[in-house]
């Protein structure tokens, strides 16, 4: 229910960032046109105004403005400053124009840096981040759930103790360190030069006309080290979450009852324990969506992956506000979507949870 109001709040925040970002966007675009040239300083303001009009920056900022009467009357009585003066502008305002462009056309404006539509920049860089994030999520869940369940079943035994120690060590290692070590050992001919050291494809060999499966086999070695870096800490975290959830369920009376009824351990584990211990895992699943789009600046930079992490980093360095604001808005949207999906999954995993009015 709160999805739409929350999304409106996010767009408002993004828009405020856009409007309040240092520097006048029109001036920045015009600077790109006029620069420091002495010749054009006379008509500089005229060109700025023209650019402002083209970009809709001459319009009122929002649907309405609240001021005091004194702001519009310079020689007004003192009490004017206590009287609100509200103006309504209808849909002829910057926010409406900005939001309509996004909603109707997916238009987030133009990048200050590349002069390309922001949406194109995002579409160009998104696939690699998406591939890595989704593969990493699948791997992380695929590996951590069995480990967590097994550790819970063997609570206090050798496997539980060893896996706990190993996973805590993994979780405590920073990803830039792991990435560097992986490169040093597995992309270095002095040790095991098994994997490429950077990028996602061999620029010499890669051919756009290859069938998809050939491309996939070509890309695979480039993805192994980044994927390990993306995944290892999630495995550590998720398997501990899974273990904790499962142990809690193992202690429930209905599990004892199930055992007393003579149900097999496998049935108990998957039918009763697994499903009921999913709640913490589902919570973390909500964060997959925004991460899938933003990627990781550190991992993408270290492995030279042309993804969103590097794009965001470049945008921040270049003060490329249209790109920053677009990514902020998309992250907001996806975070909310993640929560929405989590809520649905909660209800699917646990029939006791219901969002309908009773």
């Amino acid at each position, binding site marked *: 229910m709160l999805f739409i109001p929350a999304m409106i709040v996010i767009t408002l925040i993004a828009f405020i960032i856009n409007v309040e970002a240092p520097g006048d966007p029109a001036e920045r675009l015009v600077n*790109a*046109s*006029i*620069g*420091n*040239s002495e*010749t*054009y300083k*006379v*008509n500089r303001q*005229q060109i700025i105004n023209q650019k402002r009009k083209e970009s809709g920056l001459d319009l009122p900022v929002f649907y309405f403005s609240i001021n005091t009467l004194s702001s519009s009357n310079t020689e007004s009585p003192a009490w004017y400053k206590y009287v609100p003066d509200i103006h309504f502008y209808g849909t002829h305002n910057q926010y409406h124009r900005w939001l309509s462009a996004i909603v109707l056309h997916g238009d987030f404006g*133009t*990048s200050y*840096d*590349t*002069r*390309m*539509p922001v949406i194109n920049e995002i579409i*160009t*860089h998104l696939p690699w981040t998406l591939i890595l994030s989704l593969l990493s999520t699948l*791997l992380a869940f*695929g*590996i951590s759930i*069995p*480990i967590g369940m*097994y550790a819970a*079943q063997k609570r206090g035994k050798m496997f539980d103790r060893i896996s706990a120690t190993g996973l805590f060590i993994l979780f405590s290692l920073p990803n830039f360190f792991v990435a*560097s070590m992986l*490169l040093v050992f597995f992309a*270095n*001919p002095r040790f095991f030069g*098994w*994997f*490429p*050291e*950077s*990028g*996602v*494809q*061999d*620029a*010499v*060999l890669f051919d756009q006309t290859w069938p998809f499966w050939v491309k996939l*086999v*070509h890309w*695979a*070695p*480039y993805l*192994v080290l980044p994927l390990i870096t993306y995944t290892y800490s999630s495995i550590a975290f998720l398997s501990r979450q899974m273990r904790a959830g499962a142990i809690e369920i193992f202690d429930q009376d209905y599990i004892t009852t199930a055992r007393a009824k003579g149900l097999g351990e*496998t049935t108990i584990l*998957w039918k009763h324990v697994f499903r009921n211990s999913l709640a913490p895992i589902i919570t973390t699943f909500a964060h997959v969506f925004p991460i899938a789009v933003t990627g990781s600046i550190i991992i993408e930079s*270290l*492995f*030279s992956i*042309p993804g969103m992490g*590097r*794009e965001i980093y470049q945008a*921040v*360095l*270049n003060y490329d506000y249209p790109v920053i604001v677009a990514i902020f808005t998309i992250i907001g949207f996806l975070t909310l979507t993640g929560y929405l999906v989590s809520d649905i999954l909660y209800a699917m995993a646990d029939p006791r949870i219901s969002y309908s009015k009773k």
Partner: protein
Amino acid sequence: MKIHTMLKYAVIVAGLCVITGLAGCKNRSGNDKNNIVVTSWPSQPATLNAVCGIPSSARVLVFEYTQKTLTRTDLRTLQQIPILVKSLAEVSPDQKSFTYTLRDDVKWDDGSPLTVDDVIFTMKATKCPITDDALIRSTYDNVKDIVKDPSNPLRFTMIAKDLYFNNKLIFNELYLVEKKHWDSSGVMDKISIPDMDDPKFDANKYAGLADWMKKFNDGANGHDVKKLCGLGAYAVSDWAANTAITLTRKNNWWGENDTCAYNKAYPSKIIIKIIPNDQSRYLAVLNHNLDAEMWLFTDSYLKLKENKDFNDHYYSGTTDQITCNLLFINTRPDGKTHPMLFTDKIVRRALAYLTPVDDMNKTIVKGMATRQASFLQPLFKKFYNDTLKLIPFDVDKAKDLLAKAGWVDSDGDNIRDKKINGKKVQLSFKLTYSATPTNKEYVLMMKDAMYKAGVDLEPDPVDQGALQTKAAAHDFDMMLTAISSGAVPDDPGQLFDTKNWMNNGSNFSGFGNAVSDSLIAKSNRETDEDKRAVMLKKLQAMVYDEQPIIFLYGIKRKIVISKKYETPGMYVERPGVMLNNLKLK
């Protein structure tokens, strides 16, 4: 399914992933049969439009092989040479008219010959106030007009507004664009070059100009490979964003039988991989995945030099670069946000004595840098004032100077202080720098050194954008940064003209007075190199005396090139290697 069975499956899946990865690795192989040169660059260009957008070193690298200029600087000699013209300019006695004759064998990709109209169109497109090319347009402010020779369609004269040392070099970096391709309807024909200089230029006065320019400025013209055409031997055949730019040699290119080194095109492809970090570049060289590399950090380069396999497979060497790391001192602080610490040149000189430049060179860049005492590099032999002595690290001398300037430790806290306008001020300042690990090392070494003389240096790391903003706003005490220039000494006014301090230009330190401004103006108008050299040496002496900047050194470029090529040249000027000249043995 039992847990341990699931675990088995998980291990099998992970194993399959690794096996697939390893299988894919077999794809990797050398490119020895075809001469495909692979190099790297740390970032991709913002655009590859020859006129519009933000220029960058990556763009210059690509244009080196895909675009042509009328004249250029020869990397080997640092002298100007003709490229698309038959000879260098015939200069009029008043030094304001420069006449060129185009070569008659130059053809665009569509087979059309290069014409004077193309040159005029390129200049109009560059000078037009509504073209999105601000960062390069001001270079052409001094071009008054280009006039065709009625008796020879290949001959034209560029007329300059004023005397300027750079006039004869004006076409060195103007990448030509084809009029027929961009302006087939002749929109630009209605406007003359002098019209572009009208301070009241109004695009709406010229029918169709605003709409045409909107299309011309479109970002896609700098990204869509089909639109990236030029006169060079190579065309951009693929641009995988943030991954690689592939340049493919053109068939039937107009210059393929030319003997000029810049028109050689031995490699069938030049691939520029975008590798943002040094470790990957280092590993790429170790794995023989790069044929030429010019961006290695010192440590990586030295580590490679110790590797036998590397030495067996790569040539390596260093060249000076036309860059300088330096410290700008704010000589005109506002006295509020930044105290009046460095208004006295004696104090600034003391700071120079307290900067351990040689130690920094030895420790941080392992001696792979060349010191300089002025804003010009010693490699500019004609222009560099070699009478200026490098300032040594000398704590005692610095202490004496600081005491002479009235800075003493009156309260015994190891930091010198002084009463300024009746208020006690400590000699404590912020050193603002772009937050990189190397810069941090510089700053910490300086902090230690300064403290020895009772000067408190507080590191102030910021991102590069903030550094530029602070520099322009004079919002710093001292700032660590770097400058670079071209093969001919730049206009010194950028760094030292008082006008460029007042208008928040790049005279960050606030150096200058009427005498220095006049000297800069004279040197800029001087077209005789020998006379200009005398003036620049005088200016260097003035700057040296005032010490608004502490000049550190220019870090050498480290170059490695595969030994599968015939012995290559390594050059001072960017990119340091002529990739088009790499010929397989």
